[in-house]
């Protein structure tokens, strides 16, 4: 190693050490979970609802040191049979009550269609089980409130909202970074999720097909804002430490005119206090530029894609110091300063973040979410992605969907976000 490299590494260590002071707790979370969880027995989970997303859940838990799947529940037998390939030792049933009553189940993961969550959550809490409930909690405010209120009424039981972005090591890192004021005055947020996709599920029989495509019917679905946008709405609520006061929406069915009655293309404008607005667009017609969320402020902009993040500074913003040596990438005509979520861990290993290793995090957000939930159960700590976070994100999504379906601007009373 030459002198220049040594100085540079020392500088980075010093710079990151000062960042560590500011960011350490959350940034270390990802790195520490794997070391802390194996010392306690894995939490035994019952998975209720074995659909498409559950493949990810099963694959994630099959690798986990902190969790095991001990029960699987779905009314569709072939889905259960398939799930057993990944969780071969699990008990199977088509009745969720058998899962929540099973002594072999400590906690349940509720991954059924959104409109079926409520009864299962209430039964699980009644039976004394911890609950991980996928987001959105429900398709109506009443159901979402019933779920959240029941969770709050059982404070000894852990309840985690399926907002895995809250566990994403990169997002947590940037959240702390935003708290230092690096954005300056927040001006606007631009967010999108695009994928050319029919969003229709296939099945061997028409009956099964109707069950699987619940998300294409306005009777049971809150559409793209609810099933997709909720994660981006939650990110904005979290980062801005604020809640929307109004939302306008538009929706069209451009490409997939197959009998569905939720739009395949939506635009929403969410208004936050201090005249800050979030634009959310989503289409199933074009894949262009996939998914991102961009926070723009008077000092800098922060761009987040699923596993990566960049900061672009304004020319007149103050020098932070460390960014001189940070890895940079071109973002069209801009120079993006790469955000490296595992920086602390990498420095402990004697590596330069973003230089000697990938910028991407080494544990998926979903894996971190389940490790965190298991840890919260074993160590009696608060899970990341609280019931209130989940409820508020659900309300935001329901109101955004309402605006899309009506084409109107909808005021969101502050009181709707309170559970009391």
């Amino acid at each position, binding site marked *: 190693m030459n002198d220049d490299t040594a100085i540079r590494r020392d500088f980075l260590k010093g710079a990151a050490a000062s960042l560590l002071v500011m960011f350490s707790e959350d940034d270390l979370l990802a790195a520490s979970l794997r070391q802390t969880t194996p010392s306690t027995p894995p939490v035994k989970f019952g998975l209720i609802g074995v659909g498409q997303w559950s493949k990810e859940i099963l694959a994630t838990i099959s690798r986990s040191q902190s969790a095991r799947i001990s029960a699987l529940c779905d009314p569709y037998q*072939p889905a259960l049979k398939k799930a057993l390939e990944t969780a071969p030792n699990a008990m199977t049933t088509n009745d969720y009550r058998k899962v929540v009553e099973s002594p072999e189940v400590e906690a349940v993961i509720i991954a059924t269609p959104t409109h079926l969550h409520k009864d299962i959550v209430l039964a699980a809490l009644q039976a004394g089980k911890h609950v991980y409930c996928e987001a959105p909690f429900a398709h109506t405010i009443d159901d979402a409130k019933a779920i959240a209120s029941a969770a709050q009424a059982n404070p000894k039981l852990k309840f985690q909202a399926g907002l895995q972005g809250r566990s994403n090591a990169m997002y947590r890192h940037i959240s702390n970074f935003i708290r230092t004021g690096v954005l300056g005055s927040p001006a606007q947020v631009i967010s999108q999720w695009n994928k050319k996709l029919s969003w229709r599920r296939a099945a061997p029989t028409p009956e099964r097909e109707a069950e699987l495509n619940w998300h294409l019917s306005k009777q049971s679905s809150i559409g793209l804002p609810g099933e997709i946008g909720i994660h981006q709405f939650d990110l904005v609520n979290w980062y801005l430490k604020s809640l929307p006061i109004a939302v306008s929406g538009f929706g069209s069915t451009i490409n997939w005119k197959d009998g569905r009655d939720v739009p395949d293309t939506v635009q929403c404008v969410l208004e936050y206090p201090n005249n800050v607005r979030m634009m959310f667009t989503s289409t199933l017609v074009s894949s262009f530029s996939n998914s991102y969320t961009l926070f723009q402020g008077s000092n800098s902009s922060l761009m987040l894609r699923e596993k990566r993040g960049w900061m672009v500074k304004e020319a007149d913003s103050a020098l932070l110091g460390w960014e001189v040596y940070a890895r940079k990438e071109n973002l069209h005509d801009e120079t993006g300063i790469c955000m490296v979520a595992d920086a602390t861990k990498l420095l402990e290993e004697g590596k330069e973040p973003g230089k000697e290793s990938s910028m991407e995090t080494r544990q998926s957000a979903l894996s971190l979410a389940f490790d965190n939930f298991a840890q919260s159960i074993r160590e009696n700590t608060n899970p990341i992605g609280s019931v209130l976070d989940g409820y508020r994100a659900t309300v935001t999504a329901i109101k955004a969907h309402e605006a899309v379906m009506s084409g109107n601007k909808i005021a969101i009373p502050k009181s709707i976000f309170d559970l009391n």
Partner: protein
Amino acid sequence: MNCVQLSTHTMATRFELVLYGNNRSRLRAAGEEALGEIERLAAQLSFYAPDSEIHHLNTHAAITPVRVNPRLFSLLKSCAELTKKTDGTFDVTIGPLMRAWRFVNEKGALPTEEEIAQALSQTGMKHVLFDEETCSVQFDHPGIEIELGGYGKGYAIERALESLRENGVTNALLHGGTSSIATIGSPPNDAHWKIALHPPLAGTMNLKNDAMSVSAVHGKSFIVDGRVYGHVLNPKNGWPVNGAQAAVVQGISASVCEALSTALLVKGADWLPQLAEYFPGYVGLVAS
């Protein structure tokens, strides 16, 4: 009968799917689910992505047993079996050799003899230990790295076809980078899917409810002093294959075809009788 075509880019290649059936929207939905399965497996099996299961295994398995997804456990056991049956010419622990030859995120470069010897000492499925009871995998040697480039594409295609069949699809063809192809049924008004082979291979192969895979020395390669060094490495001696130019294997399983076409390329035409003996139902062709 309706025809629906879909594609996706993943595993550093393009996958294309053709489906025939009566209902377009159902075909499209089934196709999207199948390609989604390939994308999911690409994320799980990636040698490069820091949060992939293979990356986690490669990073930790020399230090401690690593619990893996039961289906990945089965996949790795199948690979170990194939390594035995191909006399070590198909071996997914080829990662260190790929690094030595600068084929990992680079265009390739000639390594030193010492680098090849070092990489060879870190290559071999014998270094991969399986614990059925805990569904965990451990390496007995530091530096071992599993790289599923010679198997993962065929495996993903196989799983995608499994998904299509579960969703009632009866006529489909799926290929990855044109080198791995698998089929369900046949196209309308034809008894088979007809696949034309490019030079140095020649002729046409007929597929119906089966698969094929082509391995060739061309593609990713570099030239030093007029000699071409291709990316298909012989795990036995650590050098790029330089005998046969291309090999193709047809049979029921896309993943087995992929492994066998690599082995056949390494071993050459002399191995064809053993291929037929050890792998009934699989047939191969070699262009030397």
